[in-house]
């Protein structure tokens, strides 16, 4: 299995290199939105500007490290029939998606980590103040967040077996995620009602939770509870993907690609 992954990773890496320019263009979009939001908050609470600077830099980083576009890939592959190609091989198609995700997250890390580092040299507010333990937990939370977002994206992609406008469905979910994951506002700035929702829905654990660990906002009991809820959602999503896959295969084999 390891050998297969190495082969897939290598292939996805080379493929990614062919799309360097396009990837760069996509990244600019992922950066401008959080930056604009940051300026809004800096205007609302100028006294907290420094913590906003750190927060939104972290949002950019964590968002990229957890980003998943499998919903569009799957939608296209199923619609165009190229998904059959993957089904003919003795490897589950999800591994191709996982390999692609790993390659791109590696790319984003390689680009963003130095940027953050250099930024931290010039602007002290950007410096993280984490203990080694916190750093480890932060990384664990990021990985968990990436897995959650991937599974959600893949599940929605599998809906393409039944629904034609899967992108629209995911669009709605993504918009909800904007609010409840902390991308529009740090969660503590949200009206209480929304904050309640964010505790129990999976979106917080995709972006905000790792950042809360990094800023020290979440510790002790809060930390444990956070991981527990995230793990719970993980189990739900894994079961969801498995169920959708089986149902999708049945549908696909009845109607054909």
């Amino acid at each position, binding site marked *: 299995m390891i050998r297969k992954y190495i082969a897939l990773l290598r292939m996805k890496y080379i493929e990614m290199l062919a799309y360097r*320019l*396009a990837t760069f*263009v*996509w990244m*600019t*979009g992922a950066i*401008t*939105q959080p930056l*604009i939001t940051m*300026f*809004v908050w*800096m*205007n*609302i*609470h100028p006294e907290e500007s420094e913590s906003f600077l750190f927060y939104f830099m972290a949002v950019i980083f964590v968002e990229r490290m957890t980003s998943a576009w499998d919903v569009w890939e799957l939608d296209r592959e199923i619609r165009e029939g190229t998904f059959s190609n993957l089904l003919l091989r003795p490897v589950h198609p999800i591994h191709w998606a996982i390999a692609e995700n790993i390659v791109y997250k590696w790319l984003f890390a390689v680009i963003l980590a130095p940027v953050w580092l250099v930024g931290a040299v010039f602007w002290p507010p950007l410096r993280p103040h984490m203990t080694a333990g916190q750093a480890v937990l932060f990384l664990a939370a990021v990985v968990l967040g990436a897995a959650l977002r991937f599974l959600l994206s893949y599940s929605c992609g599998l809906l393409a077996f039944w629904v034609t*406008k899967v992108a*629209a469905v995911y669009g*709605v979910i993504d*918009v909800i995620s*904007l*609010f409840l994951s902390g991308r*529009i*506002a740090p969660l503590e*700035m*949200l*009206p209480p009602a*929304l904050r309640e929702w964010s505790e129990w829905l999976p979106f917080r654990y995709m972006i905000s939770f790792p950042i809360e660990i990094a800023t020290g906002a979440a510790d002790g009991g809060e930390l444990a509870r956070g991981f527990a809820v995230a793990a719970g959602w993980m189990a739900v999503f894994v079961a969801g993907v498995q169920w959708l896959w089986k149902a999708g295969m049945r549908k696909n084999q009845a109607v054909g690609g």
Partner: protein
Amino acid sequence: MRRYGRVFREFFRACLVEELEYRSEFFGNFIASFFGLGIALLTIHIFFYQTDRLGGWTYGEVLVLLGVFNTLRGWIDFALRPNMPRLLEHVRRGTLDYILTKPVDSMFYVSFRHLVFWRLIDVALGLGVIGYGLYVERYVPSAADVLMFFVVMTASLLLIYSLWMMLMTTSFWVVRIDDLSFIFDSFFDTARFPGSMYRGAVRFVITYVLPAVLITNTPALALLGKWSMAAVLAALAVAMLFLWVARRFWRFALRFYTGAGG
């Protein structure tokens, strides 16, 4: 000029018929527009939960700005965005030749051939939000305000068209990027909010280097009675300038494409 009016009407009619074929989509699109606007309003609400001024603008004023933004974006999605990927395809496949041999100005054709009607809902909703913002603000625009608003909106539309056209024209060279409109979206996104919100070096960039904020802020300010003749004339002048540049650029690209001269 009248001829182009007729041609545009034909595009309008053809695309409308095409879209009415997919009547079931219409409903879904309607909902999508409402949803999109609802989210934007919710976002503003969240911001104003914590404050009552954004860059010096009040809640009502920011609503007017949002309305202007939505309206302009509706126009972009109605006329400009649908044509971008098509131009890319034409260039890639070489089918641009068909267009060049038609007795219509190619830049006009390439910009307006495909229109997405349901996006006009965004325009309508945007105007609605402008109205709502004025209501919240308890401000009734004077006749001069409205006139200036239209003038400046026209300037903004022309400016957007020019910028968009220039971006489209780059597809002659940058054939590998699937979605150039992404660049414009990122740029235009900065225009959601008042320019006065930004500070320091960023404010400088936003105002003089990538002045997207002027595109939305100026019309909003005009309608709110905060216009100056100088600003209005400047807006018009800038729009005209960019239109001219866009046209030159298009001509240049065509010469490149057809292999004629330098």
